[in-house]
């Protein structure tokens, strides 16, 4: 640090009243003798006066009322329920965990139903990333023979196959898709 830089720091400390008496006297001498130091000192003092002189803005008259209202609201909210107050995070975490456990249980129960040997699809949960299923009866289970023709049968089979491929589903998934 150059002498001038050091002197500037000393002048700041001098104005702040942070220097011990001997150093203080030395800086005062410098300010007296050195015009550059004097000009710098004047600038520092003028800035301090300007900053100190900044007007204090007034607190709005309704400040306390607004604060009280906010505190009251917060207190009433914290009294309102299980999810309010300091325990809200643990409470929410517990409920979330229970909800996940419940979904897993339901899924497992219904999953075991679909593994039955019955040729007739049973109610259950279809878990697939495919778009929502349209419920229809698989072509091989349609009773077309009762009134349909060979052409109708072929058309129906093609239609279902193309719809399935469009939806990105396998025929097994289709079979699992049933109406509740």
């Amino acid at each position, binding site marked *: 640090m150059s002498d001038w830089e050091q002197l500037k720091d000393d002048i700041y400390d001098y104005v702040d009243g*942070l220097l011990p008496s001997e150093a203080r006297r030395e800086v005062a001498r410098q300010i007296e003798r050195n015009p550059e130091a004097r000009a710098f000192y004047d600038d520092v003092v*003028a800035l301090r006066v*300007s*900053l100190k002189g900044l007007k204090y*803005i007034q607190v709005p008259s309704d400040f306390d009322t607004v*604060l009280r209202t906010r505190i009251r609201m917060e207190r009433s909210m914290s009294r309102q329920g299980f999810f309010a107050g300091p325990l809200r995070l643990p409470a929410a975490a517990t409920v979330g965990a229970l909800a996940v456990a419940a979904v897993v249980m339901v899924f497992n129960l219904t999953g075991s139903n679909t593994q039955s040997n019955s040729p007739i699809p049973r109610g259950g949960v279809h878990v697939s990333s495919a778009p929502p299923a349209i419920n229809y009866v698989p072509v091989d289970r349609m009773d077309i023979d009762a009134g349909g023709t060979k052409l109708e049968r072929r058309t129906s089979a093609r239609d279902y196959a193309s719809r399935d491929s469009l939806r990105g589903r396998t025929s097994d998934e289709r079979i699992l898709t049933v109406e509740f």
Partner: protein
Amino acid sequence: MKLSMVEDIENIENTQRPSKRGDKRPSDEDLIERFQKGDAYAFDLIVKRYKEQLLNFVYRFVGNQEEAEDIVQETFLRVYRKRKAYKRIAKFSTWIYTIAGNLSRTELRRRKRRKLFSVTDMGFEDRDYEISDEGYNPENQVDGIIQEEIIQKEINSLSPKFREVIILRDVQELSYEEISKIIDVPIGTVKSRVNRGRLKLQGQLKYLMKKK
């Protein structure tokens, strides 16, 4: 005649500040301790003591009065909520200034992220003084209010780390030690930031100060 709640609080304050003979006013630390034990009036006294200085600190820091009011309200709400977190090892003023400073810095960061400037929404800190005619001469035009605005504008042109220490030191007149605790940096760093901030302001406000 029934006193309003605020007047009531003022009476309490006044009764606890008996005379110049001896300052029997409860310290901030006493008040927060009373509040921790459930004395709601103590909180009111804290609000009364700090609302003005905090509002002015935050206002000078963020440069917008409405935002400053919101931040100070939030500061007191945090004191209310986290009263148990205060430990007497620290000065209460340091604690409350730290909260207000942190909230102000968060607001400045949020504002920086938003960067959605609308001319009509600009606070004085955002307005440029470019609407000037040919004959505009700062040395002749400066008067009280404009001068204040110019000083504030220059304060706002400092980066937040310099701005905060300048306000705490030269506007709020806190000690370097207290500032060091509030912003959690060593005293030497505080002094260096204050001096650099002053140097910058001196350069920017030179014409204004010469006028004075």
